[in-house]
């Protein structure tokens, strides 16, 4: 029996008050083309306080018992019936018209495993700090591996693909969404819709349960696991479509060399060195382009949260000075 539900919204919560906004932004979408459900994964360890939204027939609550984010999200996915899965955090919310946009891009690209739109970053007065959309379509493995951002809050993931790639990796805590995105890019194609569909709150009162100190290490671990998969080199090469991304691919290989050396994985490091040389050799036509070196040297890729927030922080310091 196949289900008729188009997508399942999975909202893990640790009991923050902002949960209400997140849920209402989903329940109040004007959308009649298909059915959807909302799965609230309460990982706080305590029952959720009573609220009106709990009476909605679309809502299902499951109580996981402090199982960490990846487990909570995978649990939500396990009970979901939708053809697509969406993951929203309890401090973010969807913008009006989001579902309409998702529906259109899903109709247009039924084979894409990852559909996404733009994301709006706002401060405490709901002022727009930035709108980000990297606009990637098709095979964008090199871009995603190289650091391009397809924010999970603004994405729909094909449920079949989600399980095929094993769901969220519980060993990566904090940047597990980026890891999932990399594995999805390895596995299938992306499709983009230009408008902003989700809102990410980054005001001064913003707090997070994410341990960002772990993020750089987790990112390297995630990339290294993926680089060990078969056919990666070929897929990276076919998706690197400009000098910038050729430089970026080389950076991906180079950065895992030291990671493996530090862990005394000498043979893997040797293999990565060899691949770096091959990547370099195959990108020789690009080495006179400035973009190539820009890609190789840049710490963050444009149209990512870090890039934008760094710029914003600079401006604020400048303003205050």
């Amino acid at each position, binding site marked *: 029996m196949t289900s008729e539900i188009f997508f399942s919204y999975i909202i893990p919560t640790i009991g923050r008050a902002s949960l209400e906004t997140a849920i209402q932004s989903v329940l109040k979408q004007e959308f009649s083309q298909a059915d959807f459900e909302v799965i609230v994964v309460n990982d706080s360890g305590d029952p959720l306080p009573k609220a009106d939204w709990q009476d909605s027939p679309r809502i299902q609550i499951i*109580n996981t018992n402090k199982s960490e984010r990846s487990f909570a999200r995978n649990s939500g*996915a*396990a009970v979901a019936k939708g053809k697509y899965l969406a993951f929203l955090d309890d401090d973010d919310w969807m913008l009006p018209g989001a579902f309409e946009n998702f529906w259109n891009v899903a109709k247009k690209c039924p084979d894409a495993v990852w559909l996404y739109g733009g994301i709006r970053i706002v401060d405490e007065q709901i002022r727009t700090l930035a709108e980000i959309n990297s606009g990637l379509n098709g095979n964008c493995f090199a871009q995603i591996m190289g650091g391009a951002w397809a924010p999970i809050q603004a994405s729909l993931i094909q449920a079949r693909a989600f399980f095929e790639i094993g769901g969220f*990796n519980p060993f990566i805590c904090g940047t597990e969404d980026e890891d999932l995105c990399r594995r999805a890019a390895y596995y299938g194609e992306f499709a983009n819709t230009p408008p902003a569909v989700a809102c990410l709150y980054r005001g001064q009162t913003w707090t997070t349960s994410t341990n960002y100190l772990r993020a750089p290490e987790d990112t390297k671990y995630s990339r290294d696991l993926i680089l060990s998969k078969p056919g990666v080199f070929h897929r990276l090469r076919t998706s690197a479509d400009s000098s910038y991304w050729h430089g970026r691919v080389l950076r991906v290989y180079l950065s895992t060399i030291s990671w493996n050396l530090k862990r005394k*994985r000498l043979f893997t490091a040797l*293999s990565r060195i060899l691949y770096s040389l091959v990547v370099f050799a195959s990108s020789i036509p690009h080495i006179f382009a400035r973009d190539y070196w820009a890609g190789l040297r840049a710490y963050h890729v444009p149209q990512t949260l870090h890039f934008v927030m760094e710029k914003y922080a600079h401006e604020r310091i400048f303003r205050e000075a």
Partner: protein
Amino acid sequence: MLTRAVESVLAQRLPASEFEVIVVNDSGVPLPEADWQKSDRVQIVATNRRERSVARNLGASIANGRYLHFLDDDDWLEPYAYRHLLQLSQSSEAKWLYGMTQLVDRKNKPLIQLRHGLQGNCFMQVMAGEWIPLQSSWIERNTFMKIGGFNALLAGPEDIDLLRRVLLVEKIAETRNLIAHVIMGGNGSTTDYSRHPQASRQAREQILDSSNVFHRMRSSALTPFWRGRMARVYLTSTVWNLQRRHLFTAASRISLSIASILHAGNSILAKDFWRAISGPYSSIAFEAGIGEAQRIK
């Protein structure tokens, strides 16, 4: 069948406040009504026809207990099973507790009993094919979460893979009491890990890539036989990687094979060492059980 499984848990001789039952219905259709559904110890959650591992990980994440017990819907427990395991938990710091398993055929006819005799650090033994049924085991929930739960990409050998990953970091303890009755497919000749040799090999390769594996195997390979087994693990992995043209991984495995032979010291003079290197993997407990069953016949 499911009713028998659930009722065997509800009938445990243990205060009801000590345990809960989570039924993960992965059938895609609602469960037929049954008396046990009225018990306030039972919680039912429906998954939408996912793999076993996904369903079990979901059950684990909503569980409140200190220990997790995974029972399949066609198996059942001894009435005192939980009490034995609880007692064991009070005297042991091991994170994986287990007891004996009675294998039965499809007609519920007893086949053999499994006595494993694994205690403490047994990483080497489980890497070489020893296997303990989940049905007879308690796994500490924190440990389960820490090692990432069941590998959702493995269909078939996910139980032995979990056991290996737990024993890579933790210890195991055994109680000499019968815990569970487990139905074996066919004539009782197949086990989970031999049913899916390809997936099983891949899972073991992933474990060999983890850190501290060499050291952990060495410290659990204390006899010439197990030292031979250790060399065999790396040698077979070398061949497997060569066949798949993972040349650098193969090079790493061959150097670890040589290292494990060098570390074996005097053991290489023992006949057992060479028997272990050349012989195929098997579960000693399983073979002992079959041998006993044939003797009784």
